[in-house]
């Protein structure tokens, strides 16, 4: 779809959940950074799968199993091309971003990180890109180091060279922050990490939603993302990894599907990606995520991100007019994606969210799984509005109107 043809009003019709009232008001769904709504195209594929093709994959000779396997593997091809992976074999199905990061921290980490080694992450990471590394550090005796953030919520990269040493084994960083919306210069971090021989993992939970991701261009070693923030079902995600790394890695979990031959004492592993897919996978979820990729591809990432940027610019402008409202994250629009974290006077974000909810406006309030970010800014929580392809100026106006109510009660 060309950018001129992009029409959010028409797109909204594809999303059944958007067409409802909440507390008597039409829903303005602005919690997309937590999870997106699902288009009819994805919902149909899910029920069609269960109604017609439901069978276990890679395990049967019968027709239904064949169909399920074909659809499951076709979905893998789709997600591979979505991030421009060199081959679908490099895309491992996981439960989501969290499991993908845990997979690397465990299966790669335990074999390659030892006492005195270093792991580098940043203060702006989601808890799912912090805690797995803390666990790894505790198990191995490695040290966890942090890239700091500045007062606009950008990574402080000035001293990056001194944070990276020959002991740095892995660097794990998000391409887009879920709490601040900051777009990080991943390529720069990859280059600097390469210079000391460190592996680079990217937490792409948000990046894959708002930008066109090309893992080959990024130059990273691992890229993790989930389906549910990009129109896909919950419970399915992808770990992309360089083939030679995946092949050299130990398995993550043991079970069916991931083996070649099982003996009494030892077993041998299936080829990648199946080596990392123990047990019956989320078959419907994977097929649903494939359908989400089809849906988004038809509309076009470029058109979507242009639309999101326009809505965000409008929201930034409108919100900055509200007395007492403080916006976190980069002030320049080029450096932020469609997420706006804010506080308002002494109204706690929780109270803001309750008041907006009665107006039918859904936002997130809390620490956004980024307690280190909250600590950096000295706030216990923020309110967060996040936009997607179906967001409209009207949604923003409704948000602003709701915030008038907050001012009326707390002002």
């Amino acid at each position, binding site marked *: 779809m060309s950018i001129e043809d992009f029409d959010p009003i028409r797109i909204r019709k594809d999303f059944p959940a958007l067409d409802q009232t909440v507390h008597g008001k039409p829903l303005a769904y602005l919690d997309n950074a937590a999870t997106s709504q699902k288009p009819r195209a994805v919902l149909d594929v899910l029920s069609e799968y269960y109604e017609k093709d439901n069978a276990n994959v890679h395990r049967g000779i019968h027709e239904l199993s064949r169909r399920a396997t074909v659809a499951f593997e076709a979905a893998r091809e789709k997600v591979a091309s979505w991030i421009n992976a060199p081959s679908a074999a490099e895309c491992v199905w996981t439960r989501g971003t969290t499991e993908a990061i845990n997979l690397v921290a465990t299966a790669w980490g335990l074999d390659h990180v030892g006492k005195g080694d270093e792991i580098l992450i940043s203060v702006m990471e989601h808890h799912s890109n912090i805690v797995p590394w803390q666990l790894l550090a505790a198990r191995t005796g490695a040290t966890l180091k942090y890239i700091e953030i500045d007062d606009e919520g950008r990574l402080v990269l000035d001293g990056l060279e001194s944070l990276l040493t020959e002991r740095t084994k892995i660097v794990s960083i998000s391409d887009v922050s879920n709490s601040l919306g900051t777009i990080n210069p991943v390529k720069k971090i990859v280059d600097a990490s390469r210079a000391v021989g460190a592996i680079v993992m990217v937490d792409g939970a948000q990046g894959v939603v708002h930008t066109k991701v090309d893992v080959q261009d990024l130059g990273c070693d691992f890229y993790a993302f989930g389906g549910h923030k990009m129109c896909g079902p919950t419970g399915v995600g992808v770990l992309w990894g360089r083939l030679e790394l995946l092949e050299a890695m130990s398995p993550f979990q043991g079970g069916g599907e991931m083996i070649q031959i099982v003996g009494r004492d030892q077993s041998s592993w299936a080829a990648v990606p199946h080596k990392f897919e123990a047990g019956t996978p989320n078959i419907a979820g994977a097929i649903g995520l494939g359908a989400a990729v089809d849906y988004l591809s038809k509309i076009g990432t470029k058109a979507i991100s242009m639309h999101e940027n326009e809505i965000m610019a409008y929201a930034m402008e409108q919100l900055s007019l509200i007395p007492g409202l403080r916006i976190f994250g980069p002030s320049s629009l080029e450096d932020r994606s469609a997420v706006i974290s804010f506080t308002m006077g002494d109204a706690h974000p929780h109270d803001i969210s309750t*008041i907006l909810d009665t107006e039918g406006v859904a936002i997130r309030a809390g620490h956004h799984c980024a307690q280190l970010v909250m600590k950096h800014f000295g706030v*216990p929580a923020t309110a967060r509005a996040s936009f997607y392809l179906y967001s409209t100026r009207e949604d923003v106006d409704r948000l602003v109107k709701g915030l008038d109510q907050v001012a009326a009660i*707390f002002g």
Partner: protein
Amino acid sequence: METPQLSSLYQQLILEHYRNPRNKGELEEKTVEIHMANPVCGDEIRLQLRIEGNRIEDVKFLGSGCSISQASVSMMTIRLKGSSIDQADELAKRFTDMMHGDESAVKEKSLGDLRALQGVSKFPVRIKCALLGFDALQEALKKEAGVVEEGAT
């Protein structure tokens, strides 16, 4: 779901306690302290009590969070000061009843300012906020009872 009225939630008395919390600060000579957090939203409090014999001689709290959690703790401390353990127990019970929709609790004088929080019961996702302080209180009483028992043997 029927739309609950915001005005029943954000009563002036609640906002007043939120802005001017009573008994906030560090308690010297506390006998028990409980740290309680709600991981969903990050609300947290540290409730400190000085219990002598069967009486709560003094109480203070530290913490941060939404208007509901902070007002609720503030109001609670007023009722606790000088009350017996049994009365504190009963207060927690009656307040919890009120949060779960028991209308008769509202008429109870013993709840004091806490009655202003009745509207919270209409906002299911906020009930946890209102109960944060009482959860800490119940933990504290349990801990204190444990200490007494241990001491007795």
